[in-house]
């Protein structure tokens, strides 16, 4: 019975979530017509994830940023989309972290540090990321910034192979130009 229960639990349970929904704090900002976003996920690095990082795995935090315009009777229309990922790898010999950021598939920043606090900040906090220049946005319209975060590799198994978001965050704002 115990084995069957374990099997069913392993087979049918969803992936363990590193941090819950709406744990990403999103702060949109409009500056010079452009839409910037600052967000942080302070609960992203759990004990379990810290162990995974300390095991030397390359742990990648992927954030998908979508700027959408609400529609009343139809699907929301996505006005802009941006993908950002941060990879971190811990070297147990040198006891240093190698952190690199990629935006839209390109490495935009890389750093090595021995400070875990620095790593925590680099992988969970982002300031003033430019989402769009606002050319296609309607002034005085209501928009929503939604950020979905996923962390790989998975640390749990689900029979359903197609993953889901580990965390999401959203914020609405009025685009004033």
């Amino acid at each position, binding site marked *: 019975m115990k*084995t069957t229960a374990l099997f069913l639990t392993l087979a049918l349970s969803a992936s363990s979530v590193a941090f819950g929904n709406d744990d990403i704090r999103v702060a949109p900002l409009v500056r010079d017509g452009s839409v910037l976003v600052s967000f942080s996920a302070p609960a992203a690095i759990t004990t379990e994830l810290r162990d*995974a990082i300390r*095991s030397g*795995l390359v742990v990648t935090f992927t954030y998908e940023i979508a700027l959408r315009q609400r529609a009343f009777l139809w699907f929301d229309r996505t006005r802009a989309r941006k993908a950002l990922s941060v990879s971190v790898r811990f070297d147990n*010999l040198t006891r240093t972290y190698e952190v690199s950021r990629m935006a839209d598939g390109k490495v935009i920043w890389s750093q090595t540090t021995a400070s875990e606090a620095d790593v925590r900040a680099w992988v969970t906090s982002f300031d003033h990321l430019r989402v769009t220049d606002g050319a296609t946005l309607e002034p005085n319209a209501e928009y929503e910034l939604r950020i979905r975060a996923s962390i790989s590799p998975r640390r749990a198994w689900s029979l359903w*192979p197609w993953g889901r978001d580990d965390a999401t965050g959203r914020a609405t704002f009025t685009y004033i130009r």
Partner: protein
Amino acid sequence: MLGLREPPVPSAEAPAPAPPPEAVERPARRALDSPRFLLLVILVLLAGLAAFVWMARRSTDLSPMFLSEVVLYALSAIDVTMLLVLAFVLVRNVVKLVVERRRALPFARFRAKLVAALLAMTLVPAVLVSIIGSEIIRTSAERWFSAPVDDVLAGATSIAGDYYAERRADIVARAERVAQTVPPGVLVEADVPELRALLAAELRTSRARVIELYRLVPAASGGTTGPDAVLVVGIATPTLPRDPARASAARLALEAATGGMVETAEDVVDGGGLLMRASAPLRDATGRLVGAVVAGEHLDAAVAANARRITTAYEQYNQARVLRGPLQGVYLSFFLMMTLVILVSATWLGLYVAKRITRPVQQLAEGARAIGAGRLDYRIEPENADELGSLIEAFNAMAAELTSSQRRLDRSRAELERKHLEVEERRRYIATVLDRIATGVVSMAPDGGITTINSAAERLLELDQSAVGRSAFDLFGRPDLEPLRPLLAATVDRPHEPTAREVTIGRDGREIHLAAAATALVGADGHVEGRVLVVDDVTPLIRAQRVAAWRDVARRLAHEIKNPLTPIQLSAERLKRHFRDAPPNARALVDECTSAIVTEVEALKNLVDEFAQFARMPAPRTVPSDLNALVTDALGLYAGLFGHIVLESSLDTSLPPVRVDPEQLRRVIINLVDNAIEALNAAGLPSPAVRVSTEHAVGDGLARIVVSDNGPGLPPADRDKLFMPYYSTKQRGSGLGLAIVRRIVAEHGGSIEAGDETPHGTRFTIELPL
């Protein structure tokens, strides 16, 4: 699926010709039943199984990341797909089996049981194996991460890390000490020999293998070029391997010279060793950053490799522990996949085997039903050469034989039907003839039961079709038909001798004369197959014969009587003249006698004239005449003559003209009215009345004249004698009136009947053809 062709069901009128055997279609074999397809499926399954076994063997070589991200994803996707396939196959076939069972298709229950048995036979062991395998995987995974291994790896990694950190701290301290040793301003004056001596002394007293001094070159004004670190002097031990990462040292020096902080870096050198560098900033007397000291220490290749190996082992161990869930998932997914492969294969195999077994039998059952429904050209295409194939061949041979027999039967049936139609046609012809003829025919079965009665027999014998089936002997026991019974009895007593006689039966007080003949139908074997009674109404013939006889008598009487009347009359008159002078008494007697003789002779002359007229009545000269006008004229003659008798008429205005001899018909009407008035006068009843009416009987094509009175009526026994010559109920009269009336009506092609008037009286009905 079956090789069948469905022709229209042959009808009785036109049996459909059977198709030639070569016209039977051959069924298209399903791709799933193709041996090549089955072999291909088996090969694909075996190949997939081999690939998974190979992958399982290689799983230790694959990185946990690859296993958990790629392999696990693929296995999970395959598992979900196979679950869907299994669910689809099961649901589809369960629905199919339920539908087949509800439609009571043959072998549906057998197929369901076979599939369920195979599924149960595979489901139980497969699930058991999966559970046991899962348990083994789980316990094995627990053993992977035992505490001793954990402690050893953690300790070794800690040692390696500590050693690495110690060496790095040492080289950092060396670089900082050199940076403090170098006097301010030396880099500016570029006293290289002095610096080289300083560094050589330092190199001899420490574990540093290389020490270099860099001078900071500030950025060019305008920002065209950034700051740079330029090597002033460097000294290394001869045992230091060649450093391929010189640029790394300059970059490290620049970072320290510009940042004012100690920086470290490690570069791999030739031979596999590790060159650990530390850079400390140099300041002038004012504290301004002017350069940097870079000290390097060589870590032996073996030591570095061992340290990295320890670290790598520890990391792999920890990674496996972190990814323990996904790794277990890989093996569980593999087990699940194999279980699903077995279940899908078992389900499909069960269905396939059940179908292979039951389909030929179903085909035979279907074929039997088709044959039973008359589709004798139904054929089954044998799919196998086994016993079931032989059975199907036998079925087809049987169907072919049935087809041939059916053709022969069809031909025989067609011939029989043709003959039956001929017989039926002949029977209808005879029935029509019998129905139209005036002769009555009654046929009987050998046991005396009546089989047919034609309409003339119904009319003459007052029978109806309800008599069919009854015993003729019982039926002819009826009083009015009793005279016919001896005829039937004669056919029983003497079946080989036809019996014929004339019989008279009473009908409503009248006599009907029938010429009857009864015959037994004797077959070739001498047995009586039936009896036939034929009756013919000869009443008119007998009447005509009597009338003709009376006419001959009348003519002779007229001739024989009239001739002596004149001499008698003359003699009487002579006698009267002779005794004219006789005494009064004698003369009175003579006068009285001679007057009586003369009067009676005159009466006899009149009687003879009537006889002569009856005998010499001319043929009627018919012209289209208005019967209503004739009736009116005739009744007009009686106007005012009989005040106490009411004469009334009821004339049908729709009566068309009728071809009659007006004088003769007027005589008929007058005669009948005279008789009615005379009867009414004699009876002396109150409110005497005579009524003459005409009627157009459209359905019968007749004109009808009815003369009736409300007198005492006629006795039934006298009705048939009324029209006989010299029959009279009156004291005076020749008895020829109604005989002449009947003759006139008869010569007009009509008929006259006497009957009772309601509530009392006499009614004469004359029917004349239109």
